[in-house]
């Protein structure tokens, strides 16, 4: 869905439905409420970004969707089915792609989830692994171990590995946060190129406004302590091609205001008022 349209949204059932979700976790000394009554829906083909400052529970929210953590109240449903445990229908892609197993080659890494879930026969799994590796243009590097790959290549393997299983949704937890700015930029480009090609649904967590606008087609803005929904915005018209247009600046300013309007000081409100 390229453009937001109230009618279509009502008509098509959401792929992922998050309803009134409150999440709490325990540290040795405290009970922390990460999110409070969060609602949102992700549609098929969305690049759905959860954006918020640290402490807004966005990573916890992603973990809950992954099934690693049950909500205290509310429900999370994927294709109408309640999420209760981790499963290969929601493949996670982590920061710096550490989930690639260093003891397996690129090919074996892509093969691994298909093998352990026994979703495909051994023959079919191998064929699929080959096909998806071909798609992310890593055929020459099939036999190489992850530590010899660049960051961008690791990301392509991580996505290939997840995509090969045909998950309903791809969950990405600040995948580029630990990278330097230039690498991050090229990885965002690669991610968008891959999306153009494969049209997967992705739920993407970030704390960078710029990244949210570039990568996302929809942006859910969360406020911190505890995480609550502040806004849901449409960013499908903006990517690398028109990053220099005023729309980018306007949207970025709007998000900035949404995130920081409750705080005192630090923000120049005179300009923001017009935005």
């Amino acid at each position, binding site marked *: 869905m390229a453009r937001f349209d109230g009618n279509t949204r009502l008509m098509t059932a959401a792929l992922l439905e998050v309803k009134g979700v409150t999440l709490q976790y325990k540290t040795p000394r405290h009970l922390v409420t990460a999110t409070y009554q969060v609602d949102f829906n992700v549609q098929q083909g969305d690049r759905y970004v959860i954006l918020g400052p640290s402490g807004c529970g966005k990573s916890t929210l992603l973990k809950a969707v992954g099934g690693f953590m049950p909500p205290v109240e509310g429900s999370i449903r994927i294709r109408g089915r309640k999420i209760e445990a981790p499963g290969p229908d929601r*493949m996670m892609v982590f920061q710096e792609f550490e989930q690639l*197993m260093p003891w397996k080659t690129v090919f074996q890494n892509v093969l691994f989830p298909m093998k352990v879930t026994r979703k495909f026969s051994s023959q079919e799994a191998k064929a699929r692994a080959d096909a998806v590796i071909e798609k992310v243009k890593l055929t020459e590097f099939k036999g190489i*171990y992850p530590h010899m790959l660049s960051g961008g290549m690791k990301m392509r393997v991580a996505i290939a590995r997840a995509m090969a299983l045909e998950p309903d949704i791809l969950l990405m937890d600040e995948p580029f946060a630990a990278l330097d700015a230039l690498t991050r930029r090229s990885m965002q480009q690669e991610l968008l190129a891959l999306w153009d090609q494969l049209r997967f649904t992705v739920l993407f967590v970030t704390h960078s406004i710029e990244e949210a606008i570039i990568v996302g087609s929809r942006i859910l803005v969360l406020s911190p302590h505890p995480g609550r929904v502040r806004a849901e915005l449409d960013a499908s018209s903006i990517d690398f091609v028109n990053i220099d247009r005023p729309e980018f600046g306007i949207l970025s300013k709007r998000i900035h205001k949404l995130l920081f309007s409750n705080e005192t000081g630090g923000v120049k409100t005179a300009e923001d008022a017009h935005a």
Partner: protein
Amino acid sequence: MNEPPPKRPEFESELVDSGAIGDVERPLPFVERVVNNESVQRLAILVVLVVIWELYARWLNNSLLFPTFTETVQTFWHDIRSGVLINRTVTSLRTLVIGYAFGLLLAGLFTTFAVASGIGTRILSTLTAMFNPLPAIALLPLALIWFGLGTPSLVFVIVHSVLWAVALNTLSGFRSVPETLRMSGRNVGLTGARYVGLILIPAAFPSILAGLKIGWAFAWRTLVAAELVFGVSSRSGGIGWYIFEARNDLDTATVFSGLLTVILIGLFVESVIFRFIEARTVNLWGMQR
């Protein structure tokens, strides 16, 4: 004072032709590669040590206290040819391998049980804290009462010396497996023994390997020491018995050749067997340099 820096013109330029410097990546010269080779360096260290030994022993000139390298090697060679040393070594190695294998098996069971639950982890860490510092040799008198003179007692003390060291290393390896790897394992639905086998063991392999090495060394030490203590046991004594006998005869060259055997086996296991495993696992995977 606070003037802005002067305006300078911007420029863009064509890249300089870097052909003159040659390939960006090229092999080092042969000599440099040989010198950097680890086994060559190790060999050089060994040669230096041997030369120092030989010179010192000649200067001391007292083969009762400190025989020369050549003398030791002659005795060593003689005992190899007569079969005595080989017999002794085989006896020792057999006991050693049995004890080591048992120890590893138990350590594997203990740690698998330990990672399955929080209480298991605490039980194992308490046990290792209790028994790891206990010298295996101190258990020998007890073992002799329980199992009598002979191999079972030796195996018992070897198991004791291997088990806790390996279990401790494996457990700490399991605990340091990155959260992302764990989550990605559970993400694809792995649980129980498959989770341990497919995720935890390979991810913790550097620590496990370190544990195996330490366990091996501990087993050797314990065995030789135990044989020295109750060498009386039998005609089929091991390498410790060989050393013990030679010392009674004040045959220092033979004592040295016994020690040399222990060292050689240690070097072989470390630099051939463990190197081989490392090169095919942790080095290949980039988990250890």
